[in-house]
């Protein structure tokens, strides 16, 4: 599902440089819309929660209070409490850090590997291209999440392995996109013009090809963070990421599953934050993309 979204995202990002920009509808690029402002504010909230969670939620995310178990959302407990009386709001805020780190690190791993493989395929001649492509096709044959499960099966569950697993399973998509972008940039007329000017190959690569290939990818990376968070949460939900008492959104979602009929808030609020974070990252990514095109 997410591969398609990423493809579409890049299609538009790269379209920005090839199509005629003056034909684009002139949307005010400088003034952010309402959704963008809300996303930016929520993003700020997330960053603060990740860096200094105690500022927003002074309580202990692991502190139990059996008497207050299963309290619905109220003034005392904004998001309610779980089966041991732990405050859900505190846990959600304290869980932001690990969720964000998982998202960012996983995306970095995926992008890094993708750049490596994609650049190799795009630049190092036909044999390498063929080999890398067949390898990618094999990886594509597995659904991304299955690939991650396979990796966890080998290296055991845990936050670190889940992060690496998500990173690995997103890499083939990035590699494919980078290769395509590289090939289209490489055969573009301005690269040829640089050859005519007598620029050596490596300087053309550094000065013209790589910047034009990678700039749209920064946007793609922002979009990827949201996706990676969802995936990591999915793994935690399956019990393959963060372990239950730890305040991780996916794990909390999983813990609430048992009480979903009596205590909806236990799964609702972690789930809401997963969705909002993904939406927020995607919105910010898209708005950066639009701004870059107009620049």
């Amino acid at each position, binding site marked *: 599902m997410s591969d398609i979204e990423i493809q579409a995202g890049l299609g538009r990002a790269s379209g920005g*440089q090839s199509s005629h920009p003056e034909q684009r509808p002139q949307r005010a690029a400088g003034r952010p819309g309402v959704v963008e402002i809300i996303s930016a504010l929520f993003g700020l909230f997330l960053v603060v929660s990740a860096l200094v969670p105690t500022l927003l939620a002074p309580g202990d995310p692991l502190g139990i209070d059996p008497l207050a178990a299963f309290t619905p959302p109220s003034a005392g407990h904004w998001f309610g409490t779980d089966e041991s009386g732990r405050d859900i709001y505190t846990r959600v805020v304290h869980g932001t850090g690990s969720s964000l780190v998982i998202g960012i690190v996983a995306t970095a791993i995926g992008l890094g590997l993708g750049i490596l493989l994609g650049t190799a395929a795009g630049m190092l001649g036909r044999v390498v291209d063929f080999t890398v492509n067949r390898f990618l096709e094999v990886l594509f044959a597995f659904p991304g999440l299955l690939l991650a499960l396979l990796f966890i099966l080998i290296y055991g569950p845990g936050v670190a392995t889940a992060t690496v697993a998500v990173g690995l399973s997103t890499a083939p998509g990035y590699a494919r996109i980078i290769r395509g972008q590289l090939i289209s940039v490489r055969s573009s007329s301005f690269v040829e013009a640089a050859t005519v*000017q007598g620029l050596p190959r490596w300087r053309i690569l550094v000065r013209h090809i790589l910047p034009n290939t990678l700039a749209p990818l920064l946007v793609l990376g922002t979009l990827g963070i949201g996706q990676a968070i969802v995936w990591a949460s999915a793994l935690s939900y399956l019990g393959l990421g963060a372990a239950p008492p730890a305040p991780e959104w996916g794990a909390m979602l999983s813990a609430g599953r048992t009480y979903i009929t009596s205590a909806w808030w236990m799964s609702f609020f972690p789930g809401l934050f997963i969705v909002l974070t993904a939406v927020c990252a995607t919105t910010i990514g898209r708005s950066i993309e639009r701004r870059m095109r107009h620049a």
Partner: protein
Amino acid sequence: MTAALEVKNLTVGFGGRPGQDPVVQDVSFEVAAGECLAIVGESGSGKSVTARSLLGLAGAHSWVQADAVSITGQSVLGLPESAWRRRRGRDVGLILQDALVSLDPLRPIGREIGDSLRLHTKLSAADRTRRVLELLDSVGLPDGASRIRQRSGQLSGGQRQRALIASAIALDPPLLIADEPTTALDVTVQAQVLELLAEIKRRGNAIVLISHDLAVVSRIADRVAVMSAGRIIETGPTAEVLQNPQHPLTRAMLAAVPVDKPRRTQLSAVPVATIAPRSTVPDGLSVDDYPVRPVVLEASELRRSFRRPDGSRLVAVDDVSFRLHRAETLGLVGESGSGKTTTARLALALETPDAGEVRIFGEPWSAVQEKARRRLRGSVGAIYQDALGSFDPRLTVGDILRHALRAPAGGTTERGGSGHLSTESSQLLDQVGLPSGVLSRRPVDLSGGQRQRVGIARALASRPRILICDEPVSALDVTVQAQVLDLLDELQQELSLSLLFISHDLGVIGHMSDRVAVMKDGRIVETGATADVFADPRHPYTQQLLEAVPRFPQRSR
């Protein structure tokens, strides 16, 4: 008798309140049945918007005001979309420029043409097929029975345009609007399509022809309306307007057409840059002078083939030999697919020949490694058709010129600081007639002519002695084209440049070249001094090409 089309004070604009910042203003004209009115003008003059308003297709966020717009006597002003849909195809047909994108690539052309019959008539499927076959036959696409199953990708450019015309005339609408119907076509095909339109006109349909090409217009239009900045500035019978233009802008447009203008005649009205006065420069040297001029680029028996997707080989360039002398222009002319661009790429050593060799200044060029070529790269510059695509989209004009100057083959002799580089950049811009203010802008924000000037400035950065120009003016309006051609001409004289000038446009080639080589199917079929080839073409293909060039009616009539 009522006119097929009557337009009174048409005003069209986009966005804003109606009446504000119109792009078409107070345009009025009439077209009678069996008459062709041509609306000419440069890009942005409002001619296409005018045409589209006549079909109710002015576009999103547009507003249309007029005292009257009526087709065959019925007012179509302010019709709702549903009413327009009933009229389009039946009362008024549209022929667009690019048949490749105007026809659905996934549907057979028989169905495309039959669409309007299906929507507007009660004909049975068999009758529809019969009518489609008749239509195909009438637009000069014989063997219709097999054609109707073909898709647009299987047809040539001319055949596609014919199919598109067939679909426009399917219901025999009294009014046809043709928006640049021949612009994307080769000159011989263009002549055939114009003949077809003239035939349709003779049958009694009224035609509104939109074109930027005055010569095309002169072939079939009875009357001409010249548009500029949204207004009709001049209108009248075709011969009168073309031979005795009243408005200065019409005169400038006519003067800019290079067809039949001798070499070294200035085309643009304003001098491009202040270089040596033209009168002191001797006229084009005669052929006999060439042996004394040194050869700067020599191509001998070049051959290059490509593999087609189906595995067969396409020979793009076959046994091509030519010599380019110092300070001369060799024109390479041919239709699309004749191998012109491959020849240019071979000359630039961007492509390696399968056989044969290119040498520059007597030194091996195509036969050596890129590393060995780099030393000489600076002496060979290139100018492209799509100037915008040849610039790194991230860079400003200043960056582009600085990079070109700093390139290994670049022109900076001393390794000065950045201040020195900007001085040289400004000088380059000055040479091509651009203010140094554009340094900080991006090519995207410049006009087509300005972009091409920046492209020329970049090519000049390395102080080249040879310029390979691949269709450098094909994307430009005729007056802008004239300025760029004049600029190239002046630079050539000032810097003793040798030009390999590639174009599909015989008018441009005839004006620019000292010698000309005619290409067809990868081979040079005829070569010689331009005046000789144009006056007395030997090869039948050259004769055919020259006959097809749209010309103005001769004044001495």
